[in-house]
């Protein structure tokens, strides 16, 4: 095992902090090896109850492996995990009845209609939601009698979400729920997630869409090469909240730019130098995409 001692990750829980039994999810030193590679390489994380947490990272960064360990679908090679106070490796029926899972691969093919699938799924849980209401919530009421394979990609994914929430989970895992959605379907999906938040569901979402994380998540964790590199609220990720602004303008026929912590004063100064409008004036702050690309591009 070649795990080097974890450096302090900005915003993340320190590895020496004890597991938090009251958190929805509490993870310390999580490791999963595939061959001689650590797909997950020492992740420490606490997710509060009621929180929407987005795990962001490129393909192969360890998002799905991490989430599937938390769901109880994969083994871990090291570390401690508590999900709703229970080690997922030993999660029993009672534990599973508090959890909803939307797998990256979806729920499989079936000859059953949407409503029949939801009714069957509901029958496994002690306190399910009304299947018809759930169909309504995901906007598939008019597809109640349709079989899965007649649905479009976006409808199919909403059916997966419906199957994930019909058991009235306290914690919902969503692994890349909107991959392949058109922008309209993605917006509809976001409002579905917001309405679930209103109902008090904790959610762990993986995505590689930055706008999705920014739109939905209370906090974002960026994972790359199996490690969390930062945990923060979306507006502050990568020091975005306090990063210097960049002012662009054109002077003497050349494009000019300057970094400044006080863009208002800087622009006022510029305005005084020019008789009229400052040519091509623009003030920019790093976008989530800028800081994200910088983070995942960092060499080891």
């Amino acid at each position, binding site marked *: 095992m070649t795990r080097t001692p974890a450096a302090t990750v900005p915003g993340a829980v320190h590895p020496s902090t004890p597991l938090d039994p009251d958190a929805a999810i509490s993870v310390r030193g999580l490791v999963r090896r595939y061959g001689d590679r650590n797909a997950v390489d020492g992740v420490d994380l606490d997710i509060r109850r009621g929180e929407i947490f987005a795990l962001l990272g490129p393909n192969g960064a360890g998002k799905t492996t991490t989430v599937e360990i938390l769901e109880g*679908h994969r083994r871990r090679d090291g570390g401690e995990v508590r999900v709703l106070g229970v080690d997922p490796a030993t999660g029993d029926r*009672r534990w*599973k009845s508090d959890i909803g899972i939307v797998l990256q691969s979806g729920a499989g093919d079936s000859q059953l209609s949407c409503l029949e699938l939801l009714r069957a799924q509901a029958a496994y849980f002690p306190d399910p939601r009304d299947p018809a209401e759930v169909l309504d919530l995901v906007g598939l009421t008019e597809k109640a009698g349709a079989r899965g394979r007649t649905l479009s990609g976006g409808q199919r994914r909403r059916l997966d979400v419906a199957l994930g929430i019909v058991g009235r989970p306290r914690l919902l895992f969503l692994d890349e729920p909107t991959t392949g959605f058109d922008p309209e379907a993605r917006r509809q999906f976001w409002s579905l997630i917001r309405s679930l938040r209103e109902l008090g569901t904790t959610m762990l979402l993986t995505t590689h869409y930055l706008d999705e994380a920014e739109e939905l998540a209370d906090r974002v964790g960026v994972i790359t090469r199996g490690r969390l590199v930062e945990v923060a609220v979306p507006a502050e990720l990568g020091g975005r909240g306090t990063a210097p602004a960049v002012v662009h303008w054109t002077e003497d026929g050349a494009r000019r730019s300057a970094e400044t912590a006080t863009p208002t004063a800087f622009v006022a100064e510029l305005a005084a130098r020019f008789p009229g409008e400052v040519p091509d004036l623009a003030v920019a702050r790093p976008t989530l995409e800028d800081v994200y690309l910088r983070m995942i591009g960092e060499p080891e």
Partner: protein
Amino acid sequence: MTTVERPLPSLFSVVRTRAGVELKEFFRQRESVVFTLFFPVILLLALGAILDYDLGSGVDFPQYFMAGIIAVGIFGASLQNMAIHIAGERSDGTLKSLSGTPMPKSAYFIGKVVQVLAVAVATIVILLLIGVFVYGITLPSGRDWLTFAWVAALGAAACTLLGITVSTLARNSRSASATVTPIALVLEFISGVFLPFDQVPTWLQTIASLFPLKWMAQGLRSVFLPDELALREPAGSFELGRVALVLGLWCVVGLVLCVRTFRWQERGED
């Protein structure tokens, strides 16, 4: 948050749900209905129309074939059906999804057993109806029905367990189908299904004797053929004791393999 916990659904209620799901999944899929249910029916009608030989004691081909084709029907409803469909459910993520829910795992397997029973009984009833009304076969009488019931049940149990095991070895339903279908056909030829077992070369008889299909067919011949024809069996009798023993052994082997190998997701995904 309220802490009053509602009781988990009973095993019985989940089994009822699973049984309903399994029956819909089977009977709504045209391929599986044609492949599993109608394949033996078509064979019976086609071969019954072509082949015509007298086995003595007033036994014509359809009367002889009845035992074999029912064994083929049970084999298809259990081994082939389980191998192909469970492999499909594993590769498309159905099993993984189910294993993440609080469904008791036993309910899944009981649901499969209900499906196998329903398909096997439907196949047997259709074959018997065709046998009686198209070919005028003589139905079993008295204690023969009892033999019919235990041979069919024990054979179906052994083949269901083996089918579940085979599903785990296959990569997906297509590869399961491509592996199991030719093997089934070969076994059918060497197990005395299409032609009298004593016409099968001895070394092939020996190979056939290792697998459950031969013993199902032999047990069922004791049901559909007059006792005199027992003399045409290689052993000189229908060997019902040995039929029970071999099928019972396959149940034990199948159960052990099943329990040891069954996976809820594809290889390498855990």
